[in-house]
Structure formats: structure tokens, C-alpha cells
């Protein structure tokens, strides 16, 4: 017993912890992102794989080098940089040159994430901001979508989003579901994205409130604009699903309270509709989410829940 007593540690309670870790969560997100990536590689071939690898490597390496250089604890192994890398790659067309994901990755990790203090401290989603920067800077590269390997005619390589606002009947729901159409490499296959998103929600990683309110709001907006057919296809097309499931649910950059999360989702949906329907850019997903990211501290501030037994102060 003497020996045992020597080994004993004194620590403050609680003494047991749940097995979920940051790393586990990030790994699960990567797993959930995998189907969409595989679909991208199937449709766009080796180019897609190349871009995904470059993007992930850039992100992890940037994080590692920065932390080594600044003499910080290296957390590059927590897989969060991998998630960012994957998301950046998924938001790039397969025909993009190699330096696009490199610039995006460095920007995302260095400027958006590490400068503000690393994981958990950034207020904007790194992948989204990087995508927006790439999109604004090199619109011609980021906006020219290659045809998939299984498309019969190269004519329809225009993104379905552009076609939808002209005439929804040009695009079939089936095409959108399986993803056999032009677009950035990770957003085309709706089935793969839904699969990953549902997995995240079931595993309790992502909060269902954001994607559900996001998709519903967007759906209702488009329903009012152009009927059921348009609404359904708008939801399936473009980056909406990728954004709703994987980017709008990023913990760090979204409100923490329950009503705040509904506001976040609904705001994203509404802005997405406004941008897609009326603004310059054909795709509003990243801007919509980014704007709501910026709004997050304010939403958090005004939706602070009442705590148990809190007595409203008078005066």
C-alpha cells in the first residue's frame, strides 16, 4: 500500500473524461469529406487527386513551419489543417494550376488561422476565406469548370447554376445527384455530400440546426422565386450542400447558442439566395457563409441564453 500511495496523483475533479478529442472530431470530418473527394477524383481524374494532395500538404506544412518558426507547440497533427486543405481543394476546379491551392492553403492557414492564434481563435473559416480570395483574384481560373470524364457533350460544361437561373429544365435532378456536371471538384456529387453530412450529424459532430435551417431557408426562397423544380435543383447544385454541411458547421466560426445557430443557418440561406439570384457572382455560398461568420460574434452576443434560475434584473 505504501508503494501505491507514492504513485497517487492529486488533481481537481472531474477525474474522468469523455473519449472525444479535437483530433478525433477532425478525423471524422475528414472521413465524412471522403465520399465527395472520391466522386471528384472519379469525375475529374488524376488532376483532382493532384490538387487535393497539394492542398492538404500545403496546409499541414504551413501550419507546421509557422509553429516551429514561432516556437509554438506544434499542433499540425490535430488534423484540422487537413480538413482545411480538403475543403480548399474541393472548392477549386480540377483544371486549376498547381499554385492555386498553394496560395489558398498558405493564405488560409497563415493569415486566417495562425495570425489570429491558431485553431479555435480564427473568426472566419479559413477554407472559405481562401476560396473567396482565390475567386476574387483569379476569377477566370476559378470560374472555368472542366467537363467531367463521363459527359457526352462538352457544350453543357457551363455550371448548372448559370443554366438554372435561365431555365431550370435544362438540368436534371439525377445529374445533380450523381454529380455528372461541371463545377469545382468537390461540390458536384450531391449524394456523396449528403452522405457525409448525414454521417457528421448522426455522429454528433455537426449540429443539424445549421445545415437544416440553411437548406430550408434557401429552398423556400427559391420556391418563392421560381417554383419547386428550381428550388430543388438550386439546393442540389453548386456549393450549397458542401457549404451547409461542412463549412457553415465549422465550430469555431459559428454561434455557440442554439437560437444563434438557427439564425446562422437562416442567414446563410437568405444571403445565398440573394447573391445567386441578383448579384455578380454566380455562386454565393462562400460569401454568404463568410458574412455570417463575420456576424457570429454579434449573434452570439444577442442570443446569449438565460442560465438556469437566472433572475432578470430590473432597471
Amino acid at each position: 500500500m505504501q508503494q501505491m500511495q507514492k504513485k497517487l496523483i492529486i488533481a481537481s475533479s472531474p477525474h474522468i473524461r469523455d473519449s472525444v478529442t479535437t483530433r478525433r472530431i477532425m478525423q471524422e470530418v475528414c472521413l465524412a469529406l471522403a465520399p465527395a473527394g472520391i466522386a471528384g477524383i472519379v469525375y475529374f481524374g488524376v488532376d483532382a487527386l493532384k490538387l487535393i494532395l497539394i492542398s492538404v500538404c500545403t496546409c499541414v506544412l504551413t501550419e507546421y513551419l509557422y509553429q516551429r518558426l514561432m516556437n509554438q507547440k506544434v499542433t499540425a497533427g490535430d488534423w484540422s489543417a487537413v480538413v482545411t486543405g480538403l475543403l480548399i481543394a474541393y472548392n477549386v476546379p480540377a483544371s486549376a494550376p498547381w499554385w492555386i491551392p498553394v496560395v489558398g492553403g498558405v493564405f488560409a492557414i497563415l493569415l486566417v488561422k495562425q495570425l489570429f492564434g491558431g485553431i479555435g481563435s480564427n473568426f472566419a473559416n479559413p477554407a472559405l476565406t481562401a476560396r473567396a480570395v482565390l475567386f476574387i483574384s483569379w476569377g477566370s481560373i476559378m470560374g472555368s469548370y472542366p467537363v467531367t470524364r463521363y459527359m457526352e457533350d462538352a457544350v453543357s460544361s457551363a455550371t448548372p447554376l448559370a443554366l438554372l437561373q435561365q431555365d431550370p429544365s435544362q438540368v436534371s435532378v439525377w445529374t445533380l445527384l450523381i454529380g455528372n456536371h461541371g463545377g469545382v471538384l468537390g461540390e458536384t456529387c450531391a449524394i456523396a455530400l449528403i452522405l457525409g453530412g448525414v454521417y457528421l450529424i448522426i455522429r454528433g459532430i455537426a449540429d443539424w440546426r445549421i445545415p437544416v435551417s440553411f437548406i430550408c431557408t434557401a429552398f423556400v426562397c427559391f420556391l418563392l422565386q421560381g417554383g419547386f423544380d428550381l428550388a430543388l435543383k438550386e439546393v442540389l447544385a453548386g456549393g450549397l450542400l458542401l457549404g451547409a454541411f461542412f463549412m457553415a458547421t465549422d465550430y469555431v466560426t459559428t454561434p455557440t447558442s442554439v437560437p444563434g445557430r438557427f439564425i446562422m443557418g437562416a442567414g446563410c440561406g437568405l444571403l445565398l439566395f440573394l447573391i445567386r439570384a441578383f448579384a455578380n457572382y454566380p455562386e454565393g455560398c462562400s460569401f454568404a457563409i463568410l458574412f455570417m461568420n463575420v456576424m457570429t460574434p454579434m449573434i452570439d452576443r444577442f442570443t446569449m441564453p438565460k442560465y438556469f434560475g437566472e433572475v432578470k434584473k430590473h432597471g
Partner: protein
Amino acid sequence: MFKPRLFPGGVHPHEGVNGKEVNKGNAIRELPAPERVVIPLSQHIGAPAKPVVAKGDHVLMGQVIAEAGGFVSAPVHSSVSGTVAEISTVKLCNGNETQAITIVNDFKDEWVELHPAEHPETLSQAELQSIVRGAGIVGMGGATFPTAVKLTPASGKVIEKFILNGAECEPYLTADHRLMLEKPVQIIDGLRLMMLSFGVKEAVIGIEDNKKDAIAAMKAACRDVEGIRVQALPVRYPQGGEKQLIYAITRREVPAGGLPIDVGCVVCNVGTVYAIQQAIREGKPLVQRVVTAGGLMNNPGNYLVRVGTRVRSLIEACGGVKPEVRQLVNGGPMMGVAFNDVDAPITKGTSGILALGPEAIDPPEGPCIRCGRCMRHCPMKLLPVHMDQNVRDENYEEAERLGIMSCIECGACTYVCPAKRMLTQSFRMGKKVIAARQRAAKEIAQKAQEELKKEQEAAGKEAK
């Protein structure tokens, strides 16, 4: 049928080592009385008791060896018959140092003359309070608040409802569970006597529904008693928390900074009620209690232990601990206090002694990723994320505004945090700082007032 409402948040930790509940089936065994008992004088919240025996005195079992040291205090009784060996300072499991009376057991177990209540069914409130106070009964769930004080509501407050806590305060612990299985009749009897005395018409026994056998036993015991019902509750830590229990059963929220009596309720642990029943019917003071010896013990079990027994004896009775043990905990794994002195005595508030393995070592803290799990799991609906940031930033005013003083330190947030942040620990510190500041502010205000008074008096005199 009334549907219980789950309090917000909460967690569902595994119920024992490797997720296995090991102690449920172990009947309560009596731990043989040790050769010496070390009975601390401060086993409760409030002023320590004052010794009334001296070295060399012969004492009987159940004899008062220390008197209550104030209103919020409780007397202490000898748990064995024997001779007082010394009165010295000892360290308790919770790390506090206190005076303790060491008694050498003569193994005769001679009780003092016991005075059971003569007319238990018609006790007045004052009589019941005095019996409870005399028996040295304190909250046995671990809070150790003197029960007599709890049963003396402030003027203007009326007890409408008794709530019995059979929810087992923490995972791993099974003491209450076994007590409900083995002494249901006594518990119901005690509750009935309390209701009669206070004229309370309604009592609810809340039991988590993973203890089906206990629910059945208690239901059977209260079948013929009017006004008492058993309420099965969802399994969710901290169901045994006072405010959570009241909310689940009555849907009333105890206001922040308030007491259960503010919503007309008094919550008692089943163990406490059993002790009250023993005091009324048998006249026996609180000298022993059921303790769960759990975790990595070779033969874990539930023991009836004399107050003042050293932890060492309990561990030995369990056949020692397994080699991988890294931590001993007094209480449950979520709120219990770690200690490293196996010679510390077991007190009235010791609900369990747990041996935990390497899982008790705190993993390294990572940065918060704002996942919001802590907020979803907080049973008090607080915002641990924001509170923690503010405490670490020494921004205590903001932390206080966020309700940090309502934190019940249940540990749910720390348990679920994927970044393994020490949230509860940080709040504990923050609360201490804020409490100290409040005290200081109060003192200053008091001083100023006194000075003002003096000045006024002086001015008054001059005027004369």
C-alpha cells in the same frame, strides 16, 4: 401520468471501470469495527463541533463526544465504545485539516442509553428538528449540510413538498441504490414521519430508471402510504443535483443564488432520511454509513462503515487495490476529491472511495475549438466557453455576469470537452476569487457604515 422532464444538458458518463457497473449487485456488508477510530470534529458544513470528552475518558457507542459549535453545525458521536486516546489534528480526505478524537475500541459495542421518540407520529416540527440535530445528521449525499438547518425553513417560507434523492449523485457510486433495495420500508417510514411532523402532503422519490429493482422496491414500500410516489427519472448526470432534481420533478427553477425552499421544496438524500428514521424510531445517532468502495479494487463492494474508520481498513476489506491505480477519490469520479493519504478517516459525508486508473491523469489541454459541447451539456445552462475565457483573462466581472456563481461544479463540461480543457477547475478558481472579492467589498461597506454611525453618534453628542 406525469412525465418527468429532463433538466437541460447533462452527460451520461460510463458507470464504472471500463464502462461496467460493478457494484450494483453487491449487498451492503458490515465492515468490522477497527481497533481505533479517528472521528473528525468537522464533518459538516459550518462551525466545527466542540469536544466534550478528554483524553482517557471512557465513551460508549453513540455517546456525544463533541457538541455542535453553532447553529449551522452538528454534534459528533462516538462510533465505538472504548477509551479516548487523544485529541489531535488530522488531515481529511478532502484535504482540510481538522481536530479529531481518536478512540481505542474495546470491541464491546456498548450503546449509550437510547431514547426513541415516544410518539413518533405526532412529533411537532421543533421536536423533529431537535431529534435530527441531536443525532448529528448531515446531508449524506456528500454535501454534508446539517439537516436540522435544512429542516428549519426561514420565516415566511413553507415546505410544500419533500423530494427524496434516490438518483445517486454520481456514476460509480451505488450506496444509495443498495440502501433503497435493502431498507425501503425504513426510508418510507422516515419520510412519512417527516411529512406528518411538517404537515407536508406530498413527497416524491426520484430514482434514475437504470435502477429498476430499486424503483420496484420503493414502490412496493410506499404502496399503502398516501402522498408519496416514486418517480422514475432518465439516466443523466447530474440528476442527483438538487436543482436538477427539483426541475425534473416539479419543473420549477430554483432562482440563482436561492435555495430549494424558495420553490417550496426540500430535497433529502435517501441515506439522510434513513438516518432520520433511525434517530426517531431507535434513538440512534449517526455513527455509521454506507460507503461504496469502487473502481479498481480487487473486491469492490458496498460497506456499512463506522464513522472514523480509516480508508486503509476499507481498502484492506476490499482485498487491496489493483496495481494500475493512480488516484484515490473521496466521493464520485465527477465531483469527488482526490487524496493520497490512506490513513484519512471516513466521515459522515463519504459516499464512496474510488480507486481510479491512468484515466484519471489529466490529458494535456488543447485550445478551445468552440464546439459548444460544454454549453449543451451544462445542467445549469451556463456558457462554460465564455466563462472560462473570461476567468483566464482575469475578467471576473464579466464571468460573474455570465452566471459563474451558479456553477455547481458538476464537471459535465470538463467531461465532454474535446480539447480537454479544465473548465470546472477554472470556474472553481474564478468562484473563489469572486467570493473573496465580494467578502472584501462587504467588509469595506460594513466598515464605512460603522464609521458613519460613529460620526453620527459623535455629532449627536455634540449637538446635545
